[in-house]
């Protein structure tokens, strides 16, 4: 009997050939796999958001198998003793079951919540990166707008999500949301009663939020993320300016294999960090909040961090009611300004910013190279100002917790927030502006005079000077133009220390002999010291 030889090594090629015979994918696939991505750590922040979204989908699907989106009243009889026998909604009871009775349910719930927080956090940090480096400029304004919308859709996803368990905290949040909607003039009461199906809380809101949370909003997010990534592909990724990098090319790694492998690895890291947090840190312990009852509002009832700035703006807003004497009189409650008008303004400014800046600078060119934040002090300072505004509002959203744990008067916290909201942004603007100018100045200085070597030389007249290593070849002080590249500031950036030793924690190879820097002879071992005496002893 003759056995046919099975050549394992030829299997992938043969399979690929067979696939290409049938679908003709080789040409487009080659183009795709050869696509080049520039490599810089700050370009991976958006990926964190993408990967946490994948984790959200995976864990979310698991949770839907066990969650019951209904407000029908049941009596809890599960394994968490301190709530046994308590009447509650089916949604809350099933959330408790997920936490205590479904195998792996609690870690799934916690991973879902942590990845939601991470999703929003990485969106914001990614957005800051894009803003401060000018990546939003033409032709990428659309992607900036989509990114901003992704924040707000993510905001809605988060809000509907943490309202679903129908525990005391989420009910408190829903009550606030209904109050915000009620504060909108003219349409407020209609809007609220149509969303809640009548008076708050009604019996339908959980079912409605559920379908919004598991179908409508994820669908919208998926669509927006798809367009976002499609545009990055189409318009190509921006890159830092540097040697060989121009506005017309992209320097980096091919999609396959390096970039794909790295991203695959990074996905595992993101997944791992979320899983660790889900397993180690307790998030949203719904069993302590109890079922939602209108008369139960716990202290330290805060929304998740990405909603907290609205809570803060509400806490800081003075109680200014606007009375409009039409008919029986009409009142615009103070809640309207910090929770409807303010986010409206923020959305408007963020969406319009690329166009506002281009209009202001009369800039109609394509930009594929990034700018270092220090090179655009006005924009960087404006960004710092926005960040300061956001941080003051977010801290004010938790001001009762801060007041209690740091033993500060809550009233003082509120006033600090009010004053800080007005003072901190301009201060941030000024400080950032000066920092940018200072950094630029130092870059230019190094370009003009060279890098500080740390070698002090004593001149014949007794003065000490530090030797500078000029960056330009040639005689002494050939000044280089500043073109927005990274300027080396340390000698080992110039190769003075030799190549870096490979290895993460310990060297995986023998370190190479440090080469002798050009122009300096190798350092001789010190000669034996001689005692300098008066000369008496030598005789």
């Amino acid at each position, binding site marked *: 009997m003759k056995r046919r030889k099975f050549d394992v090594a030829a299997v992938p090629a043969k399979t690929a050939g067979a696939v290409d015979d049938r679908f003709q994918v080789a040409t487009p696939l080659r183009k795709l796999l050869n696509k080049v991505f520039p*490599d810089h*750590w*700050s370009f*991976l*922040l958006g*990926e*964190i958001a993408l990967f946490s979204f994948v984790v959200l989908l995976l864990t979310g699907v698991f949770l839907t198998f066990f969650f019951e989106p209904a407000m029908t009243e049941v009596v809890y009889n599960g394994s968490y*003793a*301190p*709530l*046994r*026998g*308590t009447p509650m909604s089916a949604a809350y009871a099933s959330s408790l079951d997920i936490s*205590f009775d479904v195998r792996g349910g609690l870690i799934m719930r*916690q991973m879902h919540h*942590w990845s939601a*927080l*991470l999703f929003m*956090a*990485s969106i914001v*940090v990614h957005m800051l990166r894009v803003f401060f480096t000018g990546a939003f400029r033409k032709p990428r304004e659309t992607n900036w707008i989509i990114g901003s919308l992704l924040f707000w859709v993510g905001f809605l996803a988060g809000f509907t999500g943490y309202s679903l368990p129908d525990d*005391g*905290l989420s009910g408190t949040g829903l009550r606030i949301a209904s109050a915000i909607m009620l504060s909108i003039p003219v349409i407020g009461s209609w809007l609220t009663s149509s969303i809640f199906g009548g008076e708050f809380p009604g019996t339908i809101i959980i079912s409605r939020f559920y379908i919004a949370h598991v179908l409508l909003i994820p669908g919208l997010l998926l669509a927006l993320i798809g367009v976002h990534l499609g545009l990055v592909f189409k318009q190509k990724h921006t890159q830092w300016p540097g040697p060989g990098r121009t506005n017309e090319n992209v320097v980096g*790694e091919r999609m396959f294999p390096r970039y794909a492998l790295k991203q695959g*690895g*990074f996905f595992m*890291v*993101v997944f791992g*960090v*979320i899983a660790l*947090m889900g397993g*180690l*840190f*307790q998030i*949203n*312990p719904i069993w*302590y*909040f*109890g079922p939602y009852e209108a*008369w*139960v509002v*716990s*202290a*330290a009832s*805060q929304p*998740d*961090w990405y909603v*907290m700035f609205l809570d803060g703006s509400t806490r800081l807003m003075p109680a200014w009611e606007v009375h409009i004497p039409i008919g029986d009189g009409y009142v615009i409650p103070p809640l309207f300004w910090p929770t409807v008008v303010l986010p409206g303004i923020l959305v408007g400014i963020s969406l319009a910013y690329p166009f506002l800046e281009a209009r202001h600078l009369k800039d109609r060119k394509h930009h594929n190279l990034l700018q270092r934040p220090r090179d655009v002090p006005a924009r960087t300072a404006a960004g710092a100002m926005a960040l300061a505004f956001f941080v003051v509002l*977010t801290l004010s*959203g*938790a001001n*009762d917790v*801060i007041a*209690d*744990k740091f033993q*500060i*008067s*809550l*009233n003082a916290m509120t006033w600090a927030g009010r004053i800080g909201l007005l003072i901190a942004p301009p201060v941030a603007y000024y400080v950032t502006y000066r920092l940018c100018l200072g950094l630029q100045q130092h870059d230019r200085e190094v370009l003009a005079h060279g890098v500080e070597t740390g070698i002090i030389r004593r001149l014949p007249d007794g003065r000490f000077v530090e030797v500078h290593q000029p960056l330009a070849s040639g005689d002494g002080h050939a000044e280089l133009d500043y073109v927005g590249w990274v300027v080396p500031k340390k000698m080992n950036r110039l190769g003075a220390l030799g190549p870096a030793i490979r290895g*993460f924690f310990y060297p995986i190879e023998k370190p190479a002999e440090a080469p002798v820097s050009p122009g300096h002879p190798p350092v001789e071992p010190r000669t034996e010291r001689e005692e300098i005496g008066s000369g008496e002893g030598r005789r």
Partner: protein
Amino acid sequence: MTSDNDRRRGLLARLRGRPAARSRGRRRLGAALRLIAALTLAGGAYTVFAPGVQAQENPPLTSAAAEGKALFDVSCVTCHGRNAQGVEGRGPSLIGVGAASVDFQVSTGRMPMARQEAQAMRKPPVFTADQVDQLAQYIQELGGGPEVPEGDLRRGADLATGGELFRINCSQCHAFGGGGGALSSGKFAPSLRPASDRQIYAAMLSGPQNMPVFGDNQITPEQKADIIAYIQETLKHDQDQGGFNLGRYGPSTEGLAIFLVGLVALVFASLWIAGKS
């Protein structure tokens, strides 16, 4: 006749030993002197007998209360005044606050207060348990008031009821996890973590500082037992099922954690991955 007359005459006249045909002026002087003497006598008698009369209304202090009074007169009298009547602008009257109040304030170290501020802070107690009892006994005998019952304060408690009552009545200020919360102007609801059964019971009965009084007609002793059991057995001794609880401050520390732990870890990971080329 003369002796008859003598007998009828006043004492003073007899002492003078001679019958006198006194003038009207002298007689008036004598009357005035007699009046003064009578008034002095009555006043003296009053001063002698009055404390005795009061003591008849209040039975004398028991020995424990007397010990308590001694402690009170050393440590508390500065602010709460003599006989716990209070001092304007310094400390309130303690008449009628009852033993429960003393029990709470002194056993948690809040009293004696370090200084006048928004709220008394919990400190290591100054007095021993016996001394607290003596002080409580003194205040109780002084003016009555609520007392913490003896015995097991969570006998036959129901955790679920306790949880519900806790969330309705306590969580507004002490927060869902019992960690406490801020009130206005530097006041705060303290953490329930260090509180003993007896202290929680005493606090509910007496309503210390900014806390409302939850008398037995509002929350029955059985319900108080439920609440105490929930605090002690669920909030304090229940291990957090989800892992490290981040201080149970709600979403604010969760937000901090995602930035400080999650995002920082991932930024380092991205530095590492992007650096591999």
